[in-house]
């Protein structure tokens, strides 16, 4: 499969835009899933996954053909997701007081989907529960847990995608796994 993708990449570089379609078909579900798990929102996931393919197409010349194409594609997608998540983050402090109120801090203003009440969580279907628990993970563990469990990637490949030392990836898998265990246990 890798050989076919390499061939298609060369064709696209030679000006054949249609050859890119096969690349998109091949990777669409994997890339969409990463974005969906990262962003926890179908519309945003579709937008970002499409954007990732467009960026890959536009910057295809910078892709080092000696390396794995999927690694490069995943890197583009995860970076776009992380940027999107950062932009969504509110730029105020949660324990700052809400103006015009007395003793009411921002924790009381968080939208319901950030942390659901226990009984709501217990009623969830397992697949929604899993998605919810992943979305609650801190950013730096979330990406790695998604790539490890949901995309079923090797630790070394994750290290290549995120351009991180293998040791850091292992540590984060361990901490992410432990965090998930506690989240599942506490509910």
């Amino acid at each position: 499969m890798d050989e076919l993708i390499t061939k298609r990449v060369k064709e696209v570089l030679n000006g054949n835009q249609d050859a890119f379609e096969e690349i998109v078909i091949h990777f669409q579900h994997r890339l969409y899933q990463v974005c969906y798990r990262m962003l926890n929102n179908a519309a945003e996931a579709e937008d970002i996954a499409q954007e990732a393919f467009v960026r890959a197409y536009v910057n295809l010349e910078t892709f080092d053909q000696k390396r794995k194409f999927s690694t490069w594609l995943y890197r583009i997608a995860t970076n776009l997701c992380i940027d999107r998540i950062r932009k969504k983050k509110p730029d105020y402090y949660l324990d700052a007081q809400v103006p015009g109120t007395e003793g009411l801090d921002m924790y009381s203003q968080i939208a319901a989907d950030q942390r659901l009440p226990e009984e709501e969580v217990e009623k969830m279907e397992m697949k929604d529960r899993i998605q919810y628990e992943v979305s609650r993970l801190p950013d730096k563990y979330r990406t790695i847990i998604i790539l490890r469990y949901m995309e079923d990637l090797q630790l070394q490949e994750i290290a290549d995608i995120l351009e991180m030392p293998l040791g850091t990836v292992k540590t984060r898998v361990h901490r992410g796994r432990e965090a998930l265990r506690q989240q599942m246990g506490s509910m």
Partner: protein
Amino acid sequence: MEKCPKHVVHYMHAFLDGEISSEEEKILTKHLESCEDCKALMEELEQTETLFENVATVQAPSGFTNNVMARLPQPIKQKGPKKWLRQHPMMAAAALFLILMSASFFSSFENEQQFSFTKQPNIIVEGETVIVPAGEVVKGDLVVKNGDLRIEGEVDGDVTVIRGSKYMASTAVITGSSEEIDEVFDWLWYKIKSVAKEVIPSSKDDKSNNE
């Protein structure tokens, strides 16, 4: 309850990563047999792992590929010079260098419209004409640009007239070579020759030294 060694938790994760050595696995198994807390922790971690690994994959919505293809910019026609430049940076640099160099050659030919000549003590200048008077001997080379040269006396060296005419009286003597340059290519050739002369000591000089 005895405090469990910290490396046991580390071994649990190594086990789940599939990166545990057989020796470490033995230690872990032995510890789990004797420690209920660690056994429970290991089971929870394994359950979590299974749960998250086996979650159904999410599929991209239908029409995803078509939407991507519609969003792509028009294919960039890079068959032409841009691609060639990118693939042969050294050749591109050399070509650019040649273009700039030749431009400076041609522009210097076109722009040097001013009358100029080699300063020699015993020549006379009338308007744009340099005269070597009869009976005088000019020692060394003589170059006249954008003007005429009339030789009645003797020049002990090379004579070059660029964009001008050379008149020789019957009494004129030129010991060296003599040339008139009018065209761009002659000019170029002259430039190259003079550069070569500076770089390589001329064979004529060698001969004269030998004599």
